[in-house]
């Protein structure tokens, strides 16, 4: 793979470019707008302010996870433990969130901390242990699920303080999870564009050897991306727990695949080095719009799964075709 311009450690690029690399700014956006247009023609309930806010709220979890896993995919890795981490961190947060026990920051911090710790372990196993990311995070997927069941005793942890569940509510008419997603995406975009570590993430994914020769500490970069991904999974876990007012040890099944799908639809390459969080946000939006639209149209469960799969593959196929 040739050394890409993203790998250049010199000089930041405009934020806009990193949020949405020009290559896929077009096609995914067009696909998204086309689907929106079709949906608004098919049902009057799609293009309303209330429903659009609704869609934004529904993609917020997947969006937060997808931003985290964008970093990992950019380095050419993968993280399969996200869904289990969401369950574990949600249960941990809920355990500390019984009314009157601790101030509301404690459950939030504990949830994020648990995710960060698991992400750090992922990163350590991948870098120090040199275990392939697929295997390392597959292991964490099972371990974290087991821990979630252990911590909760196999049953949902309920009786959550209203201070924490408010996190799943609204602020000035906008759902708080959406605001969190926006902050996370902007911060991640800024970070990737304007910090040395951000550029190193691209460099490692673009060409690991070249990055190493250029004096970049590859293990440090990898450790960083897995830890960050874990931390964001922790944040998502806390938000989910707040939204559904319990910590569910069985929550989050398959979330990692939705997140990876959003990233890939958004134009980030599975082999690393190319992409950005802006595309990821569009990818998450595309999946969210499809889910919402199929529900609004009352499409049967069986067809929904088929249609979703076809649209995901189709979107990526279209994207590759326009690139070629």
């Amino acid at each position: 793979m040739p050394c890409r311009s993203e790998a250049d450690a010199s000089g930041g690029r405009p934020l806009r470019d990193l949020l949405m690399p020009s290559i896929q700014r077009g096609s995914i956006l067009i696909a998204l707008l086309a689907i929106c247009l079709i949906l608004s023609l098919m049902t009057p309930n799609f293009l309303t302010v209330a429903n659009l806010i609704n869609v934004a709220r529904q993609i917020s979890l997947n969006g937060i996870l997808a931003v985290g896993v964008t970093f990992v995919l950019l380095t050419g890795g993968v993280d399969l433990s996200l869904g289990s981490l969401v369950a574990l961190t949600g249960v941990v947060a809920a355990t500390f969130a019984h009314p009157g026990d601790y101030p509301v920051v404690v459950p939030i911090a504990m949830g994020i901390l648990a995710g960060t710790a698991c992400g750090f372990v992922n990163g350590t196993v991948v870098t120090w242990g040199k275990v392939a990311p697929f295997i390392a995070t597959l292991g964490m997927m099972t371990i974290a699920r087991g821990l979630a069941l252990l911590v909760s005793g196999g049953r949902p942890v309920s009786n959550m303080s209203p201070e924490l569940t408010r996190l799943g509510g609204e602020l000035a008419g906008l759902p708080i999870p959406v605001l969190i997603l926006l902050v996370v995406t902007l911060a991640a975009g800024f970070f990737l564009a304007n910090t040395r570590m951000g550029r190193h993430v691209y460099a490692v994914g673009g060409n690991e050897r070249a990055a190493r020769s250029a004096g970049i500490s590859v293990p440090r970069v990898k450790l960083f991306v897995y830890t960050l991904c874990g931390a964001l999974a922790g944040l998502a876990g806390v938000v989910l727990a707040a939204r559904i007012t319990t910590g569910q040890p069985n929550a989050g099944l398959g979330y990692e695949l939705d997140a990876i799908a959003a990233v890939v639809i958004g134009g980030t390459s599975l082999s690393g080095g190319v992409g950005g969080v802006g595309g990821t946000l569009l990818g998450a939006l595309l999946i969210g719009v499809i889910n919402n639209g199929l529900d609004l149209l009352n499409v049967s469960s069986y067809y929904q799964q088929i249609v979703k799969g076809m649209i995901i593959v189709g979107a990526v196929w279209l994207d590759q075709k326009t690139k070629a």
Partner: protein
Amino acid sequence: MVFSFWESDNVGWETSVRNGVRGLVVFLGLAMVGMGCGCNRADSEGSRGTESESGQPVIGVSLLNLSSEFIVMIDRSMREAAEELGVRLVINDAQRSAARQIQQAESFVAQGVDAIILNPCEVEASSPAVDRGLAAGIPVVNVNSETRSRPTAFVGSRDEESGRLAMEYIAERLGGEGGVVMIQGYMGQAAQIKREAGAREVLDQQPGLRLLADQTAEWDRAQAMSLMENWLQSHGDEIEAVFAQNDEMAMGALLAIERSGWKGQIVVVGVDAIADGLQAVQAGRLDATVFQDAAGQGRTAVETAVRILRGEPVEEEVFIPFRLVTQENVAQFLP
């Protein structure tokens, strides 16, 4: 680099050996931590069973999935009943795998247990587990769900009844007229099929009830919440009642309804009577749930197995009835 997540690097033979050793160290370390936890747990649980006096009858139990709250309740009531009746239980978790369940039945046969209680994973795929036990002359009691192979006895509930009770309650609340939505469980599972059948039976008898939409949320609270949010967009004014095939999904729908300000205009009914659901009924948030008696099923299964061992007559099918739970009678279901 295309499949770079499979291999972390292109490295020479020596480095790969070194990496292999490193990986092994990490793996063994993790495995030991894992086993440490596992062993402690097994010790504390096993102490009740394995060290009891010999001569006690032994019953091998294979449970569907100990990470489900409902099955945990069955497990607990079985242990209590076994202690009272003076039998020893060997409890295995099949973790939703019918193949594992068959292996467990086979090792029960090899251990020479006196009876087997099976909480089947699947109607068809778990049938060989029943056959293995019966072929070895060991009585088999199925609990909670059925298999195609006929066991010595079955203890459980008729899932259709729960769907019927829930929908009848909705019909009564709406005066037999209005728009209803149904949130389905995991499509194709026995509970989903039967609860849907029970609900549709009532819908057929009540022409005034219109099913506006039905969709799966895979027994999951978060999915049900999103689904309900979407339905409120498309059918908001028409929806007068929601039937969710379990309480988790009913809670999700309820949260969506409460957060968007529709509460008070939509009747929400679930099934299972989980702790959260009962509290919500008591607080007047959830209108009703249907109580499936997990403890009764577990206890009766052990009692039935013991009676078979004592040579006493038993019913071939014992049905533990469902009961509708509303704010009026919720107190008797709360722990």
